[in-house]
């Protein structure tokens, strides 16, 4: 395998609603900032890959306009996944492994605020048997949370503690959407929005974009003194049907972590894309994260959840802390589908 590193990362401020800007207008400053940060030019890009979803935009081919933001002229070797940008990063990493590219640009973007997100996500379900019942994403997560509470995986207090932790950490993240000091008991006094989930158990609805620059081997040194080397990256999908999955654990995360060579006891930090507090606990358990690992120093998805960019941003947030020397070994995670159906794990190291 070729050594590949994350050498650039930028993101837009994560907002509840980008009222004034469309996706391209959100992306342009993010990509401009990445160029300023790294000095990369389009002619150096051996590959470009993006992640987005037509259903968030409410239109077919919504990703095509991303080419305007990249300025794909002269034409670029480019591809797109209908997935989080973290999976686009995986495709770019594979492309670099083939030797067909040395430097790759990856971006992800989503404007979830334009629709009713929980109901839109119901359209991900089996259209013949499940979707006609319109089980929204919060209700499905609540079913899983109920199982977790009854199965002894976690309780409401442990869930609230995750929200408090992440939002406190987010105070240092200028791009985070939800940040501040919260009190666990006060949160637990709040009403349910879908029992046993309270508002703080759910990631917010967010708009945003993120971009990452990857570079192979010696190219990486051109862009950064201390690159964040990808030591392992893997992803696994579970069946979607909730009836055939063990919802009290994240088997796909365990498998991806094993393949990526992630070992919980040797990680300085972990950036998780959990859209719900009980899922953050499930991920911590699947990854074997202990006291020695700082979870979500950026605030994670619970402090801002721009769907299609949030996983890529986790990789970027982890990489930043390696560039700065704050961490030597970090893990980043992305997810997709109802109740953590698909999970990606990326392990980054400073040396």
């Amino acid at each position, binding site marked *: *395998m070729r050594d590949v590193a994350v050498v650039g990362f930028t993101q837009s401020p994560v907002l509840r609603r980008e009222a004034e800007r*469309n996706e391209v207008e959100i992306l342009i400053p993010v990509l401009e900032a990445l160029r300023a940060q790294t000095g990369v030019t389009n002619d150096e890009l051996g590959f*470009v890959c993006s992640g987005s*979803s*037509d*259903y968030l*935009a*409410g*239109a*077919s*081919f919504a*990703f*095509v*306009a991303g*080419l*305007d933001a990249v*300025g*794909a*002229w*002269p*034409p*670029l*070797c*480019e*591809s*797109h*996944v*209908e*997935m989080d940008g973290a*999976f686009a990063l995986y*495709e770019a990493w*594979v*492309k670099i*492994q*083939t*030797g067909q590219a040395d430097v790759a640009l990856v971006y992800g973007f989503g404007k979830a605020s334009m629709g009713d997100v929980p109901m*839109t996500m119901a*359209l*991900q*379900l*089996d*259209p*013949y048997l*499940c*979707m006609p019942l319109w089980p929204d994403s919060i209700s499905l997560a609540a079913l899983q949370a109920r199982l977790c509470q009854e199965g002894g995986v976690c309780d409401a207090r442990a869930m609230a503690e995750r929200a408090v932790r992440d939002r406190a950490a987010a105070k240092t993240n200028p791009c985070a959407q939800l940040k501040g000091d919260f009190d666990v008991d006060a949160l637990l006094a709040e009403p349910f929005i879908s029992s046993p989930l309270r508002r703080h158990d759910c990631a917010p609805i967010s708009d945003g974009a993120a971009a990452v620059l990857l570079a192979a081997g010696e190219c990486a040194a051109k862009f950064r003194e201390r690159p964040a080397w990808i030591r392992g990256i*893997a992803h*696994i*999908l*579970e*069946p*979607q*049907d909730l009836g055939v999955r063990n919802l009290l654990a994240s*088997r*796909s995360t365990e*498998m991806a972590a094993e393949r990526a060579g992630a070992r919980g006891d040797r990680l300085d930090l972990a950036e998780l894309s959990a859209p719900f507090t009980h899922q953050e606990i499930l991920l911590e358990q699947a990854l074997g994260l202990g006291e020695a690992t700082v979870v979500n120093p950026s605030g994670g998805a619970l402090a801002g959840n721009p769907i299609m960019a949030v996983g890529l941003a986790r990789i970027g947030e982890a990489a930043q802390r390696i560039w700065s020397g704050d961490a030597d070994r970090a893990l980043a995670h992305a997810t*997709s*589908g*109802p109740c953590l*159906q*698909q999970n990606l794990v990326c392990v980054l190291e400073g040396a």
Partner: protein
Amino acid sequence: MAELTAVVGIGQTRYEAKRLDTSMPGLLREAAIKALEDADCGWADIEAVVIGKAPDMFEGVMMPELFLSDAVGGAYKPMLRVHTAGSVGGSTGVVAASLVQSGVHERVLCVAFEKQSESNAIWALSVALPFSLANVAGAGGYFAPLVRGYIRRSGAPEDTGIRVALKDRQNALLNPLAHLRLPDISFDKIANSPMLWDPIRYLETCPSSDGACALVMEKQSLAEKRSRPVAWIHATEMRSEPTIFSGRDQVMPRATLDNAASLYKKAGITKPREELDCAEIYVPFSWFEPMWLEGMRITELGEGWKMTCEGATARDGDFPVNMSGGVLSSNPIGASGLIRFAEAARQVRGSAGKHQVDGARRALGHAYGGGSQYFSTWIVGSQKP
């Protein structure tokens, strides 16, 4: 150096306007099982799955691969979902190949599909967004002006498109999987069919189809052990450019010319017309055959129509194109590109049945999409490169 990769299994559904006999999972599974049988593999032999399709609104399911991948053995495996507009079938093949070429996986399955009967493509392509130019025209209305631009530039005779349609529809009669099989097809019948988007007539247009196509690819050391012929992947390439900007040549976009140049360089080809034996080119409207013959640098700019009119692209010509009947005969949009790639592979494996080109050793698979802005191609050969 990348791992040499080969196509060792090919599966296609039959293509129809409405496959009411099967669900979406059933459709993908039908193609996947055929590909596995062709490759003499089981589900457990597949390490990763790549799924491709065009816009999600074509079926009305958001990211449908999440519920579909279980049906094609994707459970507890890595799965990627590719979407690059109409070129997506081709891109799906390119991404799947890269998983093996990179050394990450030894054997992968890719499936591309569209079940257009679940929704309505013209509607899905015509949703008007605030502050955006509404294109309530469908694909035919979008591409007709580009065809007129081509005719003006090249001076191609008016009946060029009719000749392409006649050839592809005659070829489709030899392909039992083709959606449109019109036994009484004739030049006059096409010429007299209604003009939909001048100069594109009804019978010069692709249908709306349901269907899926699947390929199994594996690394050299596995493929070499096989007793049946495989299709070695000599080169893949992708190029994209923005839809609209001042001065963009939409008739002959730079992305297609750059894509072709890079693809041939990778494959060590200098004279594509002589060094390639046949091609499956993405031709959703008849006139795009001569246009992409030029766009793929198989002939000089302005001369593509001559190849068509001289019969060079017929099955018995010197450069057969769309022996399977092409997109004009079967168009499950998201799969159409992968079908081109698969049909190219069938030719060099010698497994193309009645539409086999005798002695085909090297073939081109081609897909394009968006506003003539996404290009995805590969070259496969019966021998290693």
